[in-house]
């Protein structure tokens, strides 16, 4: 079987086109086989509705009188990039409000504009002969703008990592709240409905393809940033007219203690031009495989715990090292279905025609890591030796040791030299001042925050700040104490670096 996009568009025009969603296609191919399904179906619609950080809008505000060449501009206190032309600016979804922080960001401005609300525009400038104005304050709505063109550098990830947390503390990430000790697994992506997973060789999806974006018609500009097709992690750069979009499909979001992002509804029609394309659109959740990664390791390469299919992730429970762990999605499968269904209805009712890509996007290649010209110091480069004390000793003996070693922190270890707690000179002084000399155990902190020698120094700084503490014991895999890093030591290191 072979058909062309022109033939499909002719069928859309005369109302005889047969359109199914990617989910329906999977079932249809299982029932009828590839060739029969390919013969019957002209178009398969896909859809996804997930948090897509790399999104934003180009605005043209129109000229004021006297005119201003904006040097910096804010919409509801969220800064937009205006290093382009006098009254053009790009507002990114993840830019945070100067006053409200993570509760309000670029995505919230975009959603407010879609709701028809007025946003407060403030701009400053240095003033020129042709643009004398130095400041403007006004309120503006979407209708007042000349253009509001959404350009999203990275959308529609083909699939995405699943996340869990192997540490003993809750962490807050762009994959949501991850509970301690593998308390949950989060994932993202529409699986069976995912646009790029339904055309993994990017045969029909390419530069210029007309798509559903935010409830309006949009287009693919190119492959997205960080496009990594060799591992099955393709992405798309897309554009559309914000003025025609619907708030239902563009939603502002905040990931707690992470920042703002935007949920984008995006759908792509796949023309069934031959049996191979039909076979690709029959992909099921069981065939889309991703990895579960430990997000408590704040490094570029995170340990992979296991491979998992979207079918397993969607079942609500997966096995991690013999333990049943609850899973939940960050993207909305309910809304992904709405997108695929709405696109289907547009095509059936003759409101949406398919386009051939004018250029293909790369089908091979992977993302490179950043070139770093400066060595990143590791904990092992900056840690210093530290005295330890065995559990069972008294507060008095700890005090003596602290004075001898001139250290404010004294890790407490067991018979095998494994870390079990820590006491500070403050803990000891307080105990002695209250005449509580006796066993060390009751006054020591058992829940010790530690680092390993291979961790980067930046992690130590982050942990010291986050937990409001002044030192971190360095331990190996067996919890044996190797040394210590202190806030004081790190400050010295930083000031030394500055002097060099």
């Amino acid at each position: 079987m072979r058909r062309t996009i022109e033939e499909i568009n002719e069928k859309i025009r005369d109302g005889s086109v047969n359109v199914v969603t990617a989910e329906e296609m999977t079932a249809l191919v299982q029932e009828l086989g590839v060739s029969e399904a390919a013969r019957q179906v002209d178009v398969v619609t896909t859809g996804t509705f997930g948090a897509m950080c790399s999104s934003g809008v180009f605005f043209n505000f129109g000229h004021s009188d006297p005119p201003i060449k904006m040097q910096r501009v804010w919409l509801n206190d969220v800064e937009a990039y205006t290093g382009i032309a006098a009254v053009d600016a790009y507002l990114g979804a993840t830019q945070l409000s100067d006053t409200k922080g993570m509760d309000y960001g670029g995505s919230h401005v975009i959603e407010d504009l879609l709701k028809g609300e007025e946003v407060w525009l403030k701009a400053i400038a240095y003033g020129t002969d042709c643009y004398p104005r130095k400041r403007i304050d006004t309120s503006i709505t979407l209708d007042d703008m000349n253009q509001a063109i959404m350009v999203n550098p990275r959308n529609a990830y083909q699939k995405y990592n699943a996340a869990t947390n192997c540490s003993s503390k809750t962490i807050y990430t762009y994959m949501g709240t991850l509970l301690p000790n593998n308390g949950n697994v989060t994932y993202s992506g529409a699986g069976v409905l995912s646009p790029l997973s339904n055309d993994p060789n990017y045969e029909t999806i390419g530069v210029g393809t007309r798509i559903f974006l935010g409830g309006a018609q949009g287009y693919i500009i190119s492959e997205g940033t960080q496009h990594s097709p060799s591992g099955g992690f393709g992405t798309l750069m897309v554009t559309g007219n914000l003025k025609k979009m619907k708030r239902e499909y563009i939603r502002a979001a905040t990931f707690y203690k992470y920042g703002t992002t935007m949920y984008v509804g995006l759908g792509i029609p796949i023309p069934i031009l031959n049996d191979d394309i039909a076979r690709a659109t029959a992909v099921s959740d069981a065939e889309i495989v991703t990895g579960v990664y430990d997000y408590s390791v704040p490094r570029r390469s995170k340990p992979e715990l296991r491979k998992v299919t979207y079918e397993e992730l969607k079942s609500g429970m997966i096995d991690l090292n013999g333990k049943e762990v609850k899973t939940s999605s960050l993207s909305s499968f309910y809304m992904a279905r709405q997108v695929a269904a709405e696109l289907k209805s547009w095509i059936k009712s003759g409101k949406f025609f398919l386009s051939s890509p004018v250029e293909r996007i790369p089908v091979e290649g992977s993302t490179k890591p950043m070139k770093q010209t400066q060595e990143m110091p590791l904990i092992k480069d900056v840690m210093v030796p530290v005295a330890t004390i065995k559990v069972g000793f008294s507060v008095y003996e700890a005090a003596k040791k602290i004075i001898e070693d001139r250290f404010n922190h004294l890790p407490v270890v067991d018979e095998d030299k494994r870390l079990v707690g820590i006491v500070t000179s403050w803990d000891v002084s307080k105990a002695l001042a209250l005449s509580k000399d006796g066993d060390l155990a009751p006054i020591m902190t058992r829940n010790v925050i530690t680092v390993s020698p291979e961790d980067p120094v930046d992690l130590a700084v982050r942990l010291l700040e986050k937990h409001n503490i002044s030192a971190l014991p360095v331990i190996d895999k067996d919890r044996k104490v190797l040394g210590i890093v202190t806030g004081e030591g790190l400050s010295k290191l930083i000031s030394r670096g500055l002097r060099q």
Partner: protein
Amino acid sequence: MKLLLRFNSEIIKKPIIAEAVLETGVKLEIERARVEGPQGEIVVNVPDDSCREVVNVLKRKKVEVTRLDVPITKDEENCIHCGACVSACPVGAIRYEYDWRVRMDEKLCVQCGNCVNACPVRVIKLPEY
């Protein structure tokens, strides 16, 4: 009435519960307490007739107070049914329905508040006192 008290890093080291008891003379029954990092949470049981007085004192001391007799609510109209709350719920009170809508069973909810922060579109609310 049960109240959830949240203490931020500024006030966590102050003896606020003791002060509140001394100032109001009301016996506060502590049901559970949890400290994580620089923040803390305590659930207290307060006699209904002196609740207002206790809440006023606590709020003056910058404690965030939440009533636990009113269930958590989810704004269905604005929910995007992603499910970020589903695995954050420790008691399985939030589930996907057959059509992938997310539904909350108020009867099972223990008002821990995990889902409130987990919700990216802020449609889940614990009632503020």
